[in-house]
């Protein structure tokens, strides 16, 4: 069944010792939607992300991607077979490799049918890599990084590295992208480019998004729906403008 919901997470719970970092949270993402996930520091956003994408294992609850139960799958399998990709706050690029290589790596496991086929050096293998290189170059152009495409990714600015990460995530034609604070620590000019890229991917490529973000202007301008977490629980969800005016959300942020 290819329903309306691309991602459906039910009753997700994760504890560290006595602390319930995520407590019985249920959310869903509709096909083609850009949803925001906000909440004060320590509200469990990152743990929730990790448990939904296979980096951590939830204690209980289920994660369904496109109707398929993917609870307990590893990060690499969710990426490869589910085409649900995620970004990280800090680790963004393969630093000692150039931009083109970064993007080719990001696409390889989606082009090669098996692990053993990646050891091939034959015609087929070369053709696959050159197709990836073409796509990588297209995306590099789109991200406005053409002039620096042979630079080591680690030499570029934080904002440029984030752009590389976005381009990388578009290599495999993903269904759903989860972004962990994509705007943190980058300058306003690049924020605009990141926003443009997200909107382009959403409108032209049909990618759905779930975005953790502290920059409230960005959240209200691009998200169609916002979910608020507080102390490991879902506090409220709704339209962006309703959320900013919600008394409970204000109290949560102000620690009231």
């Amino acid at each position, binding site marked *: 069944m290819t329903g309306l919901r691309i991602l459906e997470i039910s009753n997700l719970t994760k504890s560290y010792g006595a602390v319930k970092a995520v407590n019985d949270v249920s959310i869903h993402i509709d096909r083609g939607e850009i949803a925001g996930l906000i909440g004060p520091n320590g509200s469990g956003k990152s743990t929730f992300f990790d448990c939904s994408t296979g980096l951590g294992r939830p204690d209980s609850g289920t994660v369904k991607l496109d109707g398929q139960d993917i609870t307990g799958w*590893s990060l690499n399998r969710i990426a*490869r077979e589910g085409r649900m990709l995620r970004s*990280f706050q800090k*680790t963004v*690029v393969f630093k000692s490799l150039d931009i083109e290589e970064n993007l080719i790596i990001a696409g390889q*496991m989606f082009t090669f049918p098996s692990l053993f086929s990646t050891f091939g050096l034959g015609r087929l293998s070369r053709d696959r890599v050159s197709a990836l290189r073409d796509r990588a170059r297209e995306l590099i152009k789109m991200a406005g990084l053409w002039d620096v495409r042979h630079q080591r990714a680690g030499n570029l600015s934080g904002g440029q590295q984030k752009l590389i990460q976005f381009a990388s995530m578009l290599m495999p034609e993903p269904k759903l992208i989860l972004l962990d604070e994509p705007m943190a620590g980058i300058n306003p000019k690049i924020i605009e480019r990141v926003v443009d890229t997200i909107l382009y991917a959403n409108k032209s490529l049909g990618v759905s998004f779930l975005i953790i973000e502290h920059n409230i202007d960005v959240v209200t301008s691009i998200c169609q729906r916002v979910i608020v977490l507080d102390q490991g629980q879902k506090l409220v969800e709704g339209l962006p403008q309703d959320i900013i005016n919600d008394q409970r959300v204000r109290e949560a942020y102000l620690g009231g």
Partner: protein
Amino acid sequence: MSLTEVSQTQQSRDLRLPFGLVLLALALCAPLLASTYVVHALIIALIFMLPAHGLNLLVGYTGLLSLAQAAFFGIGAYASGLLAVTYGTPFYINVIASGLVAGALALPLGIPALRLRSTSFVMCTLGFVIIGQAIAKNWISLTRGDMGLSGIPKPHFALGPLSFTVSGTMAFYYLALAIGILATLAVWMIVRSPAGRNMIAIRENETLAESVGIPTWRYKLIVFMLSAAFAGVGGSLYAHYLTVVSPLTFQMYYSTTMLIIVLGGGAGTISGVVFGSLLFVGLTEALRVTPELRMIAYGLCLLVLVFWFKQGFAPVINRLWNFIGGAK
């Protein structure tokens, strides 16, 4: 203006192909030019290059520091020795079998070991060498304990009526050179494949590699097995060269030598490993002139390496290569 242009075009002539041919010619002529003792040292260097190549796949390309190479080297040596002494199988079967046995044994050893984090993994791989030696010493019915296996025949090739035994040092040199070149080509093919790119991604950042769909755990296991297979082939060659195998083949010293070759030569580069095996095995042989000071001098050389060549000799080789290639 025109003068400088002329000198530049002269400078930028690409001499890499002729240079490579000269190196190959030197390698082919070495036994004719050098003394038997030097040729012996070169054979040892070529033998150690095999486990070093394997280790480079692991340390240099995948980012896993391992001290287990001597264990797989020993397994390869014993596998060949036992096959040759017990069943009388020819060299070319033993050498392949040794690679396969070492590679296959790396699977059950790698599954628990690779679950460990960096430092614990290193300690665990060190354990393999010690356990290997203990087994070789104490499983007397199979390995003859400290007596070891002797009378392993020199490589013998037979094709119909033609047969040839690789008995002399010079002949063995060519055999080791041929296997060394094949192994270098094999590493080159692995590294240049898309899998090689995935290995580098794992070395750079394992979590990020996972997030782009790379099954890092399975890659690490496969590379661990491949590196063991290279060591196994090296061990086999060692057994057939020395014609004896003893529990001392499982030696920590060998693991560190292989690691020094890789780190000193330049981890993550193929030329670095080739150069490193010649340099560091050559160095231990050359230092035999001062037996009392040998280890001290060796240690001093390593200190120099650590302080002045932090990335091994790879940057030096790279610069030389670019210079020969005519790049400015």
